[in-house]
């Protein structure tokens, strides 16, 4: 195991080259509904158990299943109301298990990115060949179901190996959601490709707020508003990114959906300053307009930590 993964350079926030999003916008905003499939009887992994209690865990399984049966429809209706497109963090097995959901997303021109095959099958212990097979499967399955070539990756259940980022860059993925080190995109130091670290979020992720912190819906709404306000303010200096990662089995519960709408209303009220985009659109724009500037700035500041360096 390496002492430091050396995935990115330390790059102080202040004084970076200014980012301006399309149309002069200050903040790039994207919503990432996680559409996941949890197996009822998943294989065990020595490093992590899929359920907190013994298997079979009927209660946990059926709670997740709520998202695929009720929650996504409710969330889709809400996002339709505000003409917001989702960037779907997809367990690609969904294409087999619930093709109706995939069809609904395709009809709305939503983006798909890979969140592994199942959320109950972890990357821990995978060889590079096995992980490559997971990527091949992801690309092939989503292309077949939607016609889209996926460009983003969020490791299944946030489980990684040392090879994950190099592999996804090698497979011409454009962005990773697996790092939480910044509020702006940043080039990652992969051996090949141009892989962007895309601001996702654990802080305003509904899993953390509801399942881990146990916050009530109004507090979540308040958090989202304050998170947005701060990033918008800083976006005047240099464009920022805000993502709201969602899980329909949580945010779409009947008592939570309207408080969430209140947060969306707040964000939509600032639409003149916000670029409503998908993960792929943000990554593409950044790669085209700011990748080279970022690398030059890191080099000029003398903060590069060496290692494999950026892709040529």
């Amino acid at each position, binding site marked *: 195991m390496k002492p430091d993964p050396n995935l990115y350079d330390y790059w102080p926030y202040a004084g970076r080259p200014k980012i301006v999003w399309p149309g002069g916008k200050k903040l790039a905003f994207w919503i990432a509904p996680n559409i996941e499939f949890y197996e009822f009887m998943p294989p065990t992994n020595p490093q992590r158990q899929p359920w907190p209690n013994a298997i079979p865990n009927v209660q946990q399984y059926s709670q997740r299943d709520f998202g695929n049966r009720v929650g996504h429809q409710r969330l889709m209706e809400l996002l339709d109301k505000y003409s917001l497109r989702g960037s779907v963090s997809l367990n690609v097995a969904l294409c087999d298990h619930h093709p109706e959901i995939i069809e609904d997303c395709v009809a709305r021109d939503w983006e798909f990115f890979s969140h592994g095959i199942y959320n109950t*099958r972890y990357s821990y212990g995978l060889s590079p*060949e096995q992980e490559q097979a997971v990527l091949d499967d992801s690309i092939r399955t989503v292309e077949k179901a939607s016609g889209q070539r996926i460009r983003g990756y969020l490791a299944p259940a946030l489980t990684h190996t040392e090879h994950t980022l190099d592999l996804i860059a090698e497979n011409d993925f454009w962005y990773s959601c697996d790092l939480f080190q910044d509020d702006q995109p940043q080039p990652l130091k992969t051996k090949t490709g141009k892989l962007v670290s895309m601001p996702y979020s654990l802080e305003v992720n509904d899993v953390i707020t509801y399942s881990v912190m146990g916050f009530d819906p109004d507090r979540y709404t308040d958090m989202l508003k304050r998170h947005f306000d701060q990033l918008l303010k800083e976006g005047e200096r240099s464009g920022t990114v805000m993502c709201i990662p969602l899980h329909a089995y949580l945010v779409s519960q009947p008592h939570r959906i309207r408080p969430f709408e209140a947060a969306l209303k707040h964000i939509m009220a600032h639409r003149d300053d916000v670029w409503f985009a998908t993960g792929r659109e943000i990554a593409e724009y950044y790669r085209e307009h700011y990748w080279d500037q970022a690398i030059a700035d890191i080099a000029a500041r003398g903060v590069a930590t060496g290692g494999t360096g950026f892709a040529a």
Partner: protein
Amino acid sequence: MVGSVHTLNSELKNDPEYSASLNGLQTASEAFGEHQATGVFIPHFPESWFERSSSLKKIIWCGSATRKWGECGALDHCRTPEFYDDDPNDKDRHAISKSIFWRTMRSVGCHLEKSVTSFDPELKYSKHNQPETVVWSNVFRVGGPNGEPSRRLQQAQIQDCIACLKREIHLAKPNAVIFHTGYLSTNFTQAYFGAQDVGEDIPGCDGRVGVYAQAKTTVPHIWMTRHTKHTDQIRISDALAALNYAGVFK
């Protein structure tokens, strides 16, 4: 009990646990309907495998899923002569002569059966020309309309599939089980199987050995991890090195 299992050995046929697993698979197949799922694949174990006095080396050669299973709903289709008789002009069928899985299996079988003259590795694989020492089995036993089972079909059958395979190993007592299951291997199939990875690579090849915890006798379980793009020769030498490591040649 699953019907039309005339090729099933009596040891397997009379085993209640094996029958229960086959019935579970049959139920899964029927639940998907005859146009969405094939019949149940049942491997054929030669009678010589169950002769106690036999000195035969016995290897279960386990794939993941068969790409072409024949017609959906045709129970036991995999056991018909047509399944084994390879027609090079039929591109829609499984390619027993062309597939690296079969070529490697044939070559390893030949190596283990040097004294067996009835098996000719240069001939096409057919029901009359199978290496007796190597038996083909699969993780998945029910296929979909296009061959490989969908993930829904995989979920519906995996528990019974693993139970089936475990029982085959218990009853047939192979010298080793060698898995060519792609990325399913160490983390997925192995985990379902309850095998313990000994945590070391096999010298001279890309394979790992696990120990089947449920078996009273220790049957080496070998997971071949070599990437599918490698050549026949590398795969054959890998398999032989793994079998040697597992003590099959002693």
